[in-house]
């Protein structure tokens, strides 16, 4: 039923238009929040990639004489050599923060990719086949979902030595259930559509329908929403670092810098707060882009 009978089939036609992904991009890119997010993110990303290299400062190099230098805008002892000051060992805070950002992004992105892949696969099988396959997979998903992810992660990382691959693996394997659920419901909706029935009547096999017909339709929209989870995973990474279960020192990460800084909170508050502000700005930029993409997806799918 169309509300107004005039532009009736236009909406239908737009919905069935090809390249859903392109249209989500266009919608998102038209929004202010996406542009703001993108600009901030690109600036921070280039800084993270270029600054430690251009400035030639080793983030792990200690300089006890320059320890606890305040940032440029306060105190008397500041110096342009250390725009964000130094920590208790005289290491340059800006370089440490930017290197931390690299690790944070690396882990955030890889973890998200991993969990989308695992979740999508499980959801695809559960949603397509239904019946006992669905029951078994969804009970597993419920079980996984009912243990707080962070308990699982710190348990595993706490008893074994955390490395970058093990962190990615643990966070990725802990985060898939949400995707499995989303994927399952999307696949179930697609499976009921006529073109799937059409393919069955033509004699297409289940695997062909799943991977050639349904997956290309449901994966892109889910990947756009996953952008929000990159930010969430970056927060998890920093929490792990803060608890001492992330990438181990001397490699700087947001988590271990802030954990160090907490000990000097009263006489050198910038060690804990400055990297935090960097992290918050980065995450906000990612979240703005993610939220814009999520909205674009809802618009394209005729949601709100």
């Amino acid at each position, binding site marked *: 039923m169309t509300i107004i*009978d005039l532009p009736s089939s236009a909406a239908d036609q737009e919905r069935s238009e090809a390249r859903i992904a392109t249209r989500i991009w266009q919608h998102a890119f038209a929004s202010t929040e996406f542009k703001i997010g993108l600009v901030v993110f690109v600036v921070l990303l280039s800084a993270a990639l270029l600054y430690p290299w251009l400035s030639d400062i080793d983030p792990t190099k200690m300089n006890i004489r320059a320890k606890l230098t305040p940032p440029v805008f306060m105190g008397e002892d500041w110096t342009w050599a250390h725009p964000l000051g130094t920590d208790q060992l005289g290491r340059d805070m800006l370089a440490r923060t930017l290197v931390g950002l690299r690790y944070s992004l690396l882990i955030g992105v890889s973890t998200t990719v991993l969990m989308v892949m695992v979740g999508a696969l499980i959801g695809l099988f559960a949603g397509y086949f239904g019946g006992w396959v669905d029951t078994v997979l969804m009970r597993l998903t419920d079980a996984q979902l009912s243990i707080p992810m962070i308990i699982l992660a710190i348990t595993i990382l706490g008893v074994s030595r955390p490395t970058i691959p093990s962190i990615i693996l643990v966070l990725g394997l802990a985060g898939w259930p949400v995707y499995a659920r989303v994927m399952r419901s999307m696949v179930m909706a697609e499976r009921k559509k006529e073109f799937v029935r059409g393919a069955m009547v033509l004699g297409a096999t289940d695997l062909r329908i799943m991977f050639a017909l349904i997956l290309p339709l449901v994966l892109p929209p889910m990947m756009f929403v996953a952008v929000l989870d990159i930010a969430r995973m970056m927060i998890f990474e920093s929490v792990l670092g803060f608890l001492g279960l992330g990438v181990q020192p001397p490699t700087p990460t947001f988590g271990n810098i802030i954990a160090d800084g907490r000990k000097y909170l009263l006489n050198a508050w910038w060690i804990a707060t400055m990297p935090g502000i960097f992290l918050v700005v980065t995450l906000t930029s990612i979240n703005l882009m993610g939220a814009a993409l999520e909205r674009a997806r809802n618009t394209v799918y005729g949601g709100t």
Partner: protein
Amino acid sequence: MALGTKASQTVLSVRNLSVAAVDAAGARPILSDISFDIESRRVLGVIGESGSGKTVLARSIVSWLTAPLKVTAGEIMFHGRDIVTDQAYARTLAGREIAYIGGNPAGALDPTMTVGAQLVEKLSAVRPDISTRDARDKAIRLLEAVRIPSADRRFHEYPFQYSGGMMQRVMIVDALISDPALLIADNITQPLDVTIAAQILKLMRELNEEFSTAILFICSSLPVACDASDDVMVLHDGRVVEHQKPEALVAAPQHSYTKGLIAELPTLWQDGPASEPQSPTRDQQAIISVRSAAKAYYVHSRGQAGMSRVQAVRNVDFDVFPGDNFGIVGESGCGKSSLMRLLTGLERPDSGTILFKGENVGEASPRRLRELRRKFQLVLQDPYGSLPPQSSIGNILEEPLKIHRIGSRSERRDRARSVMAEVGLSDTLYEHLPTNLSAGQRQRLNVARAIILEPQLLIMDETLSALDQTEQGKLLTLFERLQAQHGFTYIFISHDLTMVRRVCSRIAVMYLGETVEVAPNDRLFFDPGHPYTRALLSAAPTLEARRYRPEECLLEGEPPSPIDLPPGCAFASRCPNVFDRCHRENPTLRARGNSALASCFLIDEHESGPIPQESHNA
């Protein structure tokens, strides 16, 4: 109908109304210069195709225009006061003096509140002087008036517990509960089955006499509008092109649009089939032979432990011979779709057999079934949902060949181009996505995809339902040509009696999962053997003089639930000719001579002469 004792009084007077879609790009007119009056107790029918602006007209009167739509000129006078300029006045009328019923009864009430509570809420909102207790009593009284069984119990039920037809009755109560002076009925029968829609129309006319309400009856079907209204107004491109009494309109249409509309209307009895289908030879082997097919589904139903068994298909028997056009008709829930899934081998029957050229489809191995699929193909209903999005037309057509590993890349390409030519799709579309195709072109593409495997049998599942008359005609011509060239056999699954009348040589009528009648075309329409078939024919919207009077054949009530079927004949609860035996035994299909079959106990007596009245007292 308007022969009341009170003098008729003009309730609504629309003068020079124009509505446009106004946005940054400018104003696009939707309605131009509309003028009409409605008097109390009168029904004014408005018809027009989609896009003619009839729904916008309805919404202008109930002050429900949303951006970008705007009234650009004219006035809508209700009891002599303009509601376009006086918004405050319009608000006091909403739901109180001007009531509205839409075409989507299922979504019209809050799903989380009981029907009764919402009726009372509405009445209290528009008439705060009425006590809750009185409101409640009035609601129950009106629910009884619209013949909702055990109204005081159903008062406490939720909207999802009502069927579409019952819900539309509730919406009629909702509209009339405040004793409005004007009722806008916008496409109210559109989502309903013909027999249910006929009940609603009958009800509306009765209530109109009782409540002295003026009714603006909007619909897209000319026969329905003529049946229901005292005057009919034809809208075309946002203008009133005709405003007449129904009889005059049909007899002497003035405007060319109305003339075309009437000429195009398909008929059931006046003309025979479009081209007399040659009777296929019945001595050869049947291409499809269905014997006592049955299929049940298990559904989880609320408030019941475990699963409930829904008997979707049972006692289905028919043969389709090569070169035949076989029709399967029935209303929603009659098991057409389930039967389609059995015929195409998507599901296997629980019992009975489905033979394709003597081979049991229901027992074929998955591998054999895949091979058989090349021989029978399905063309689906929804022109938009049936094509895989994001594939080019060429790819869509080559997909079946790839699945069955037929031909080389270039052979497949040539084959795709040749079927495109056959169904009348331009060769230049090969690389394109189906995005910009019209519904008719999409169905051509669907047909092309089905015939690329060179099947022998094509099953058309409501293939033409989404198309307008003209487009339907073109596709039917295409089907005929393809049949002549390739010798296809067609099975048309449809709810549209006029369509099957036009093309099918033999027709099966389904009710609650059963084939209740199987007969040749003329026999079915001129001498139906089953009371349900007669009811369907009497409810069919057509301008012709009816062969079956709705008063005699129209059904009361709704079909029983397929979850707990009563013993005996499933139609007994609605049958006008029911007698004792019907409640005990299920009549199966029995021969009536001349290869016609029907499942009714009255047949034996019918064929041997008139039935004595005593034998079937209800």
